[in-house]
């Protein structure tokens, strides 16, 4: 796929759609375009075209994705979890993604740029993306993959008390990994001749992932960013440890925001080792505050240049580091 696509703001056209009368020949065309999709997909598309009500969009998008997924994988879409990954879980490659996009563009009468597509990694990403386009809202921050050196660079927490080796952050969740090396200082005493990762530290690791989410993924107010010095732990509920974790284990951490309202953000979190459940936290709540954006946050790939963005980031240029991270 051509990668040398202009990322200039002028290339972006995501104006809200003007309602257009939906003629019988449009319906025939729509039926032909969606002939391999479920009847409910077609119905949703007709409703959208008649009303331009964005509530019909998810059904259309899921219906189109389903049509391009191999039949034996379609079951996964039935109870469509937004975390379902397009490549890893559904076997969709970048060419199939293009097929999906072209059909969605055709059916919803919208245009999508190549560089916007590159950031869509999950079913949730796609749904949110299309929804924002339709409503003319600024596009959400794409999933960012954050390597170990960058984790330490943005976090207020530092080694030897940082328990994230790598992480990925989107607007709806964050995932991370931490390998218990056995060199952690507290393992000398926890326990005597029997190093076991303390459950409290595992909860700490989930909290750290939530901090990273607030810094890298959470929606902010125009001209503001969440200050890394403003985030603190306030409480947690429903914490259960299911598995003893020892040196050599790789912890797979994930958190999802449940509620977010200044100054509190509540997450649910879980840790797995392979397929095994290790820790569940029903709620972890952090407090946070906004600070003035000194270095105005530049949207990844200039994606926030949709109408609704109030122009706080006049530069369309994307810093090279961020481009590389999303490549």
């Amino acid at each position, binding site marked *: 796929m051509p990668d040398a696509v202009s990322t200039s703001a002028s290339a972006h056209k995501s104006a809200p759609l003007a309602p257009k009368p939906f003629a019988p020949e449009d319906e025939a065309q729509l039926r032909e375009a969606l002939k391999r999709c479920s009847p409910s997909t077609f119905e949703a598309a007709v409703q959208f075209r008649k009303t331009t009500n964005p509530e019909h969009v998810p059904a259309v998008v899921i219906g189109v994705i389903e049509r*391009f997924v*191999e039949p034996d994988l379609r079951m996964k879409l039935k109870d469509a979890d937004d975390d379902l990954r397009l490549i890893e879980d559904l*076997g969709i*490659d970048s*060419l*199939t993604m*293009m*097929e999906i996009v*072209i059909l969605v563009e*055709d059916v919803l009468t919208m245009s999508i740029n190549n560089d916007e597509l590159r950031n869509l990694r999950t079913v949730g990403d796609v749904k949110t993306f299309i929804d924002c386009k339709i409503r003319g809202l600024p596009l959400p921050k794409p999933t960012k993959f954050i390597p170990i050196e960058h984790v330490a660079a943005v976090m207020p927490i530092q080694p030897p008390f940082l328990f994230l080796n790598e992480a990925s952050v989107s607007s709806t969740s964050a995932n991370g990994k931490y390998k218990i090396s056995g060199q952690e200082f507290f393992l000398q005493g926890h326990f005597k001749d029997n190093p076991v990762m303390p459950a409290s530290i595992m909860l700490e690791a989930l909290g750290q992932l939530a901090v990273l989410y607030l810094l890298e993924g959470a929606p902010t107010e125009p001209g503001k960013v969440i200050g890394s010095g403003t985030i603190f732990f306030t409480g947690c509920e429903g914490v259960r440890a299911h598995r003893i974790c020892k040196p050599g284990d790789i912890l797979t951490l994930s958190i999802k925001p449940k509620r977010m309202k200044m100054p509190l953000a509540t997450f649910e979190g879980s840790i797995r080792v392979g397929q095994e459940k290790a820790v569940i936290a029903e709620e972890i709540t952090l407090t946070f505050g906004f600070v003035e954006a000194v270095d105005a946050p530049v949207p990844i790939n200039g994606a926030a240049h949709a109408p609704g963005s109030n122009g706080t980031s006049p530069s369309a240029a994307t810093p090279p580091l961020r481009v590389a991270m999303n490549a």
Partner: protein
Amino acid sequence: MPRVFITGLGFVTSIGNDAASVTRSLRELRHGFEVYPPFQKPEIPCKVIGTIKDFGTDSPDPEDWTFPERYKIKRELLRTMAPNGLFAHCAMLQAIADAQLADADVSNADTGLYAASAGSPYLLHHHHDRLTKVGVMRCSPLGIVASIAGTLNFNLIAAFKIQGTSCGFSSACASSAHALGYAHDDLVLGRQKRMFVVGAEDGNVDAILPFAGMRTLSLQADPNLASRPFDAARDGFVGTGGSTVLVLETEDEVARRGVKPYAEVLGWGQASDGWNVAISHPEGSGSAAAMNHALRAAKVEPAQVDYVNAHATSTLIGDVSEARALRAVFKEHLPRVAVSSTKALTGHGLSLAGAMESAFCALGLRDGFVPGCAHLANPDAECAGLNLPRATENRQADIVMKNSSGFGGANVALVYKRVA
């Protein structure tokens, strides 16, 4: 130098979609022609083609295509195929099973694939049409790999996870014969241990009809008379598509796997007419030179050749050129060399011809028959002296030659030997 053998075949052709039905058609001289519905218009002068049965590829959307249920092809693979890619994919599956190759035998650094097709004029036209009508950003992202020359190799290499040598050959009607020759060389030179050689063509309106503009297609509406190589009443060729796949292996691989080959590939030769872009040399000079080179490379005397599967397409000029070339090469031995063109049964498969007809030779060498000249009533006087058996002969040939010629005056001859 290692010897090279043919160990597997796969067919999707107008005269059969597996080795058994192809063999029956060759033995009984049953042709694969039908009146072709899209040609039944007053403005289209030709009426007949060699049709591919049990495959429906009329739609530009591969998901509309129909093909025998025994072939399971995922949408992910189908979506980038031209019709000729579908035919070839099915022929590949047959050839792999026929040669008893495991997955690891197909996908490794020592196994390559050479392919020959003219691409898909049909899909090229379709996708270009969409480009002009709906704009470039609404075109299928897969239109290019499904339609341009090379679509055949792109698809097969990816679908079958080929890791060795691969490329496409483009010498028109000599393409797959060239592919066979160079595949043989790769094995002899020790570059590869196994090669798939694939010829395939769409064989539909867009692939065949342009030849009517050259006045090279038969205008006969009777499927029993349309393709008559070497006959005085011949009036042009009948087009066809489909695919044939041959598996070539070194003697070490044959021994290691303990399989019985169809035939040995003794050698090949090629030469060019240096004459005209589309008309064969009147004396068949390039064709004769290619045959001489092939015989020398195969270390075979003209007197040892039992059968020649001719290129003869049933055109006025081409058949005579080849007859003259055969006369020049075989001289006094001409009467003992049986000559036939199986295009009388299949039609002309263009890029596919050399591979398809070489596979016919391999079937004949294994099963002990020499295909006869179907539809030949009155041999052209210019072809006098050629031994043109009217029926398929049930006899074992030892050495056979396959001729192919393409535009630009490219000529290839391949020599095959029975495996005792």
